[in-house]
């Protein structure tokens, strides 16, 4: 039934479908909201929802244990990017206190085939990633904040995501237990 010769590359198809679906989502959000900041917020919220599920998949797949420090976390985030998006962002620009670092992306599958029109310079196209990181790390008792400080789509030489450790979340003791 199927032909000989050329075959579709499954990984590539999936990656492109993901990119295009995300693109469709962003353009729909741009249509629905007049305010670009609102779009950024929505994207982050969706990322958060994805992140809290993705961490389960990540832990099940890699079998990694707890992180000993934030540097360890950074390396695991890097390996997650390799696993899910096939990219290895560089970890750099550690703050002296060791609670802040940058992820630098040379290429980003999310922004393949993407060009930002002039009127949405405030749009953080990849803002879903900040949400994913926040959601995923919250599930392993870590409160972080992250934001894009450089963006390839806006003419910067690279894309840089700044991640800041805020605090360790403590498990609340269930009521009625000592």
């Amino acid at each position, binding site marked *: 039934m199927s032909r000989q010769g050329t075959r579709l590359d499954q990984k590539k198809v999936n990656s492109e479908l993901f990119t295009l*679906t995300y693109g469709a989502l962003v353009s729909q959000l741009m249509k629905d909201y007049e305010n670009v900041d609102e779009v950024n917020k929505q994207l982050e919220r969706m990322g958060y929802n994805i992140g809290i599920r993705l961490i389960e998949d990540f832990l099940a797949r890699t079998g990694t244990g707890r992180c000993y420090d934030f540097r360890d976390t950074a390396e695991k985030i890097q390996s997650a990017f390799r696993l*899910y998006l096939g990219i290895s962002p560089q970890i750099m620009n550690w703050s002296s206190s060791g609670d802040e670092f940058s992820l630098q992306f040379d290429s980003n599958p999310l922004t393949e085939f993407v060009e930002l029109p002039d009127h949405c310079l405030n749009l953080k196209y990849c803002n879903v990633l900040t949400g994913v990181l926040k959601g995923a790390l919250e599930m392993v008792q870590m409160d972080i904040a992250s934001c894009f400080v450089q963006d390839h789509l806006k003419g910067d030489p690279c894309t840089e995501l700044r991640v800041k450790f805020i605090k360790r979340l403590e498990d609340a003791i269930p009521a009625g237990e000592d």
Partner: protein
Amino acid sequence: MPAVPIADDCLFEFIHAELVNYVASSSKGDHDVSTLEYLGFCCGYRIIERLTKDWPRFKDELDTLKFMCTDFWSSIFKKQIDNLRTNHAGVYVLLDNNFRLISKMSSGNQYLEVAPRYVTFTCGLLRGALANLGIHCVVTSEIKTLPACAFHLEVRRS
């Protein structure tokens, strides 16, 4: 590191779920799934152009449909369409007995009411892909029991 970036399979599932969630929560009416269908259409229209650029020309409509059921379907949904039926007059029924986007929901009638919104995107995907291949059609879906789903294609000839 592979030359082509990989997006792991589950990412598409997650983003699709968020998409459905977003459209469902923002639409006023209960049955407003046309946005989802439209988004699927856009994706399908774009992706098929890239997939088939190194592909030999399709012989006819049936050949195109076969391609959709085998190679296209298996590269996106990890399995082929289980059954393709046609009346040779422009109506096709594509049956997937274990459709990936609803396979984890239930195997029975639970969640039958919400299941359609999880296949609407795929209807659009099919319609968009075929539209770019020169076949204009209307795609509807039918779910009798989860996780099986039938896609009805009705080709518009002008």
